[in-house]
């Protein structure tokens, strides 16, 4: 480990001009983070010839107090406290010499808690993913993980409802919830849209969902959608005796319009509303507070995240979005399926799901979790698995994703050859059968296909679903994979 190169002579340190960030106090290898520090882990690809420690110091500097040149006004502040400190730089396995990739480094940077406004994701992110991502000294930069101190988490509301209370309100325990997104995602009139919702809910789903880009378009204005959908929800509830819901997407051009739509959803008796990630952190936090105050479950569709989370060398990892969204206060978030059509390595997805649901998550490099994280009693977020999944994968879905998850079979319900209700029946029967088998202690992952076939003998809609989608899998390589693989320890 290299030594600190911080200039300790004030005259040298504050002489006008440009000095390396390392010498300014942003590289402190002996620094031990305080329990109250916020820690960020960046993957840095330095420009050619830039020393990795200097690059890490530059990231620390640019994401906290530094500018490109020395300023004497630092001396009017407790600047040593306010400087973020890069304290550890590790080479990323399988990069650099001997590989076809530029050398990358994991840089650990600690920030004093007073650098951030309490309860504001916007303020936190303005520093951590602000100017620094365009900084020339690094070729690419990716925010991989963050450790949030309990003291800081306690300034956030957290999920408006949480998994426990959501289940109690819905009176649904012991199995994943079932959903579907209305398809086609664009073009249906309000009246036709409500038809899809009614059929799916009556058939046995718990939720139906607006898609991320269903807001208020010429073919269906939002009030019309809300009115028809709530007719469908209530009619289905009366037909089954279950609490049912539809995520009414209230995403709109202004906050005022969003609040107006949320209020209307509430007045119609909806149990859940929905927002898109693209509305921004402050809008999300505003709606989370509204949802807490109005007994509403808040669903978040992660529209937009793959623009910055998918490529491994630049942007940010989705696990950080999971952390921020749990703090911001959403109740549901799409977090991957493992087996479906969208990006998702099983270990990475486990890391996301644990981050959303567990009371604390221990460091687990193979699952992409770089820090121990105590969640300070913030509610659990319900992950949502959506995109290219079907009843025939039920054993895998339960194995990988567990019980506290919404499984969304959009095409897998609406595309059923016997109709939407039968599609929903197939999914619900597959789900209940597999939960029963799991609880009975069977090796359901291995016996899954057999268990489903047996149920299909008395449930023809399930048979039709299995026949229709039997060969559908999406076996593409994931781009966002672990840098560390678990190694077997040799036992004597």
């Amino acid at each position, binding site marked *: 480990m290299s030594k600190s190169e911080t200039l300790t002579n004030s005259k040298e340190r504050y002489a006008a001009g440009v000095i390396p960030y390392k010498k300014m106090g942003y590289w402190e290898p002996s620094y031990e983070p305080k329990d109250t520090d916020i820690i960020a882990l960046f993957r840095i690809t330095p420009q050619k010839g830039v020393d990795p420690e200097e690059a890490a110091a530059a990231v620390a500097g640019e994401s906290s107090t530094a500018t490109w040149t020395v300023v004497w006004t630092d001396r009017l502040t407790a600047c040593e406290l306010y400087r973020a400190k890069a304290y550890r730089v590790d080479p990323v396995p399988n990069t650099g010499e001997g590989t076809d990739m530029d050398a990358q480094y994991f840089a650990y940077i600690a920030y004093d808690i007073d650098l951030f406004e309490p309860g504001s994701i916007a303020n936190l992110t303005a520093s951590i993913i602000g100017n620094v991502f365009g900084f020339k000294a690094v070729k690419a930069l990716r925010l991989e993980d963050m450790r949030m101190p309990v003291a800081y988490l306690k300034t956030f509301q957290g999920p408006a409802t949480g998994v*426990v209370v959501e*289940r*109690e309100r819905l*009176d649904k*325990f*012991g*199995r994943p919830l079932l959903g579907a997104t209305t398809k086609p995602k664009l073009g249906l009139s309000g009246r036709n849209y409500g038809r899809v919702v009614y059929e799916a809910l*009556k*058939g*046995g789903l718990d939720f139906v969902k607006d898609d991320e880009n269903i807001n208020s378009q010429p073919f269906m204005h939002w009030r019309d959608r809300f*009115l028809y959908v*709530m*007719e469908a929800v*209530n*009619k289905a*509830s*009366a*037909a*089954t*005796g*279950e*609490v049912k819901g539809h995520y009414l997407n209230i995403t709109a051009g202004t906050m005022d319009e969003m609040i107006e739509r949320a209020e209307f959803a509430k*007045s*119609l*008796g909806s149990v859940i509303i929905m927002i898109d990630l693209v509305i921004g952190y402050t809008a999300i936090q505003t709606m989370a507070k509204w949802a807490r105050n109005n007994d509403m479950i808040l669903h978040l569709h992660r529209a937009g995240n793959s623009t910055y989370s998918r490529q491994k060398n630049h942007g940010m990892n989705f696990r950080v979005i999971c952390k921020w969204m749990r703090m911001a206060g959403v109740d549901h978030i799409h977090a991957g399926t493992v087996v479906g059509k969208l990006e998702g390595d099983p270990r990475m997805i486990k890391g996301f799901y644990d981050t959303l649901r567990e*009371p604390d998550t221990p460091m687990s490099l193979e699952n992409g979790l770089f820090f121990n994280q105590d969640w300070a*009693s913030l509610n*659990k977020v319900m992950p949502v698995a959506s995109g290219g999944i079907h009843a025939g994968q039920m054993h895998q879905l339960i194995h990988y994703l567990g019980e506290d998850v919404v499984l969304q079979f959009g095409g897998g319900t609406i595309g059923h050859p016997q109709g939407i*209700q039968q599609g929903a*029946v197939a999914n*619900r*029967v597959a789900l*209940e*059968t597999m*939960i*029963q088998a799991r*609880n*009975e*202690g069977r090796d359901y992952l291995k016996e899954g296909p057999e268990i489903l076939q047996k149920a299909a003998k*008395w449930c023809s809609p399930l048979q039709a679903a299995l026949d229709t989608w039997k060969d559908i899998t999406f076996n593409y390589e994931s781009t966002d994979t672990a840098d560390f693989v678990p190694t077997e320890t040799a036992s004597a």
Partner: protein
Amino acid sequence: MMTNHGNRITQGQFSFLPDLTDDQITLQIKYALQNGWAVNVEYTDDPHPRNTYWEMFGMPMFDLKDPAGILMEINECRKTFPNYYVRVTAFDSTRGWETPRMSFIVNRPEKEPGYRLIREERDGRCMGYTIVAYSTDRPEGERYS
């Protein structure tokens, strides 16, 4: 008659499956006990989806660890209230949960007439919805005779 799949109320974990046999119920109880959850038996003749508080058939069996004993309690409840809904729940008292982790119906009235949907027309095209179980038109205890 209800017109949904199975022509019955689909609350609980296993309403889409054929009625569980005693052996199948026992396996579910074992699962609850393995997890350290307390099994509870409840019954009602008011199947409204938001009727949270079904009547308790005794206290939750915090200390009973024998699946056969619990099955006896369930069967006792079914015998006492043959024409009621009976559900088995499993309660998890660990921190962060403190809530039911399982809930499934093990007994139903012979006929399930379902629910009436009442629409209260309001301003504009807004509608106020109320769901009423046909059975609850009659007093408690006389609903499914």
